């Protein structure tokens, strides 16, 4: 086994947070985005998930990065893809019995549904209609599929919590 789930042996100071036995390590999250990562995944700890979070730890690649470790849960590809909106550089390590058995980079999906709220107060999705928010993913932002508003900055603030 390599240094705390890093198959390349790079020491990005992961040992600041504890190893997990089975679950997912979300690494190389941009510094300060860890809580948004949890929000976008709908993880708030109320279901007893065991979480380890490192924030603003030194990183060779990103200078400062966050790390999120979720014990007992393997993220689906859909969940991983949604992460790309706020953590485009993230790597996902699936861990079983302390070993990294899969490693993925996030990929930007074409569409995200039910994850973000439209910031346009005049959008039909902001009322009491029985409609799930839907955003198409652009190269440099997201776009509401209903009112067509484009959001390029602070996408994390739109996360439906």
């Amino acid at each position: 086994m390599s240094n705390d789930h890093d198959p390349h042996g790079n020491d990005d100071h992961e040992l600041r947070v504890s190893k997990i036995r089975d679950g997912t390590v979300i690494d190389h999250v941009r510094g300060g985005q860890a809580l948004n990562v949890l929000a976008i995944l709908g993880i708030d700890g109320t279901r007893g998930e065991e979480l380890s979070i490192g924030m603003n730890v030194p990183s060779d690649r990103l200078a400062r990065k966050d790390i999120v470790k979720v014990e007992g849960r393997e993220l689906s590809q859909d969940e991983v893809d949604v992460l790309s909106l706020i953590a485009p550089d993230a790597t996902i390590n699936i861990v079983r019995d302390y070993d990294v058995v899969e490693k993925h980079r996030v990929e930007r999906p074409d569409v995200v549904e039910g994850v973000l709220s439209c910031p346009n107060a005049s959008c039909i999705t902001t009322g009491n209609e029985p409609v799930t928010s839907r955003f198409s993913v652009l190269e440099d932002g997201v776009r509401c599929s209903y009112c067509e508003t484009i959001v390029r900055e602070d996408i994390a603030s739109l996360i439906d919590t």
Partner: protein
Amino acid sequence: MRHDHLITSKQLSRADIESVLDYASEIAADPSAVADKHAGQLLGLLFFEPSTRTKMSFETAMKRLGGDVVDMGSVESSSVKKGETLADTVRVIEGYADAIVLRHPKQGSATMASEFVDVPLLNAGDGAGHHPTQTLLDLYTIRENAGLDDLTIGIMGDLKYGRTVHSLAYALTNFDTRQHFISPESLRLPREVVYDLHQQQDGTGIREHESLEEILPSLDVLYVTRIQRERFPDENEYQAVAGEYQIDVETLEDAREDLTVMHPLPRVDEIAPEIDRTDHAAYFEQAHNAVPVRMALLDLLLSDHEADEDGETGDGGHDE
């Protein structure tokens, strides 16, 4: 044309537009040929915002096709007042009518509503978003007066909230056009619309201006919209720009003799009444063109839908 719903002019190809306009010309020439074509069919009119021309021209169009309308009436007298969602309203009316015309103050309302119904749904204005049927009658009027290719058009006024402007701009990218957008800084085209126009036309035919003066002599068509006083947070800000975007005979001294002046109406003071008497004025003709264009559109959509219901395939549509 073959679409289930008409939500935005972005879904219309050049061929779609030309098929509607050609058919509208046929109908305008001989309305009696389609007088009973949709006898017994009903069009549901759901107008959550005030409307005169759009609502009455749809009503006229359906009746001239031999059909009739059912009208929700005012929001104040409908179940909307009791808190009914739009999704529920359209699902109820789907059971009464063969097609639905929807105007609603929220952007994206027509897109959402179309996800809940199987009958054709026509967007008659969704907030500051789109108004594609207005665009078709605008294009019909432009084609009659100036043609649709090798066209230089100025679009002036409230470009930010003007849904007729957004829809027209998208549709014009199907043709060889140069579009000049003239507005105060505060009412420029939404960035979303500019983004789309650049995607559709590489941005080569799109220019934004604050003054009409510099491009007026090059225009084939000047499309004027109302500067909406109610959009300005400060009355002084409105007063500072409003006069700059009003046209009269003097303003048009440098215009080409064959300049066509259009306006989706209602106007307030942006076009002086003296222009009504000039050859430039096409806005009442534009309003009247709504009937044959909406007759053509309704016939095409209803015929397509009937063909689908009957399990037919192919183009459906009207008899050639």
